[in-house]
């Protein structure tokens, strides 16, 4: 069965690049949903089965850390791995994300190989 992924980033450019990179991993990926901020992501999660969330940290309205906190405080969504994608440095907000329960993070700029390497394990593990 294929994994369903939710990509959350306020940049349509990054969402498009991630769609391309994810399709290129060769992993059994079904639908890739997109959201422009945390609130849109929660709306999508309410409608679709999602196996993995890839989220930017710095977004308007509801940022990635607020989204992460919402997911980890929900019985329904707590088990979904959330990988943060960020330009943020090593401390502060990344550390906060890890503390909140992020499964990992990828720093921008990223290569296709870095995304593949980081997500391969999660995609295998969450494969329904």
């Amino acid at each position, binding site marked *: 069965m294929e994994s369903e992924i939710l990509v959350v980033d306020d940049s349509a450019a990054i969402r498009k690049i991630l769609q391309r990179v994810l399709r290129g991993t060769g992993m059994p990926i079904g639908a890739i949903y997109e959201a422009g901020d945390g609130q849109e992501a929660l709306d999508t999660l309410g409608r679709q089965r999602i196996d993995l969330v890839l989220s930017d940290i*710095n977004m308007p309205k509801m940022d990635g850390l607020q989204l992460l906190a919402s997911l980890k405080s929900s019985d329904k969504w707590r088990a979904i791995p959330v990988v943060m994608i960020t*330009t943020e*440095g090593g401390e502060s907000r990344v550390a906060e994300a890890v503390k909140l329960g992020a499964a990992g993070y990828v720093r921008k*700029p990223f290569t296709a190989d870095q995304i593949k390497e980081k997500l391969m394990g999660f995609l295998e593990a969450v494969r329904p």
Partner: protein
Amino acid sequence: MTEMENLIVESIKQSTAAVFSTMLDAEAVFEGAAIEKRTPEASDGVVSFIGMAGAWAGAGSLVCSPVMACRVSARMLMAEFPAVDDEVLDAVAELTNMIIGGVKTDLEPRLGPLGLSIPTVVYGKNFKAKGAGIDEWVGATFDWEGERLAVKVCLAPTAAPQAKARPAGHPYAVEV
């Protein structure tokens, strides 16, 4: 240049090179560095801004021609862009986020934690852009396929350090 200005130039060079090589599979050739001590004259093209705040505060900016903005977007998104549109502006915003984000990360061990705002991109003709209270920019220019990209940073210590402060808005004025 002061030690801090040299540090900023080196950070801009490293970050720009990293973003171009990883996201565009391209090389931006460093042309030179300069200090701008006054508001630039009215110009045409694409200008982006992103705020930085912490114990030091200021902004980062990218300046390029519409042609370069379209080419960069085409390379990033693997699509053709004959003219500047929303997707091009979005790609330039993300380029700004990544390049200035890299500079920020590089400078944080020296300056303490810095927050980044959401980037703003302006495209037009005969406009002037000015950051509130920003008088001196440290900049570097790069050449890519015959087009020029300028990357600029302005940072100054804040009167009352707020290590975790994040800029709420965009303290920039654009005059057309």
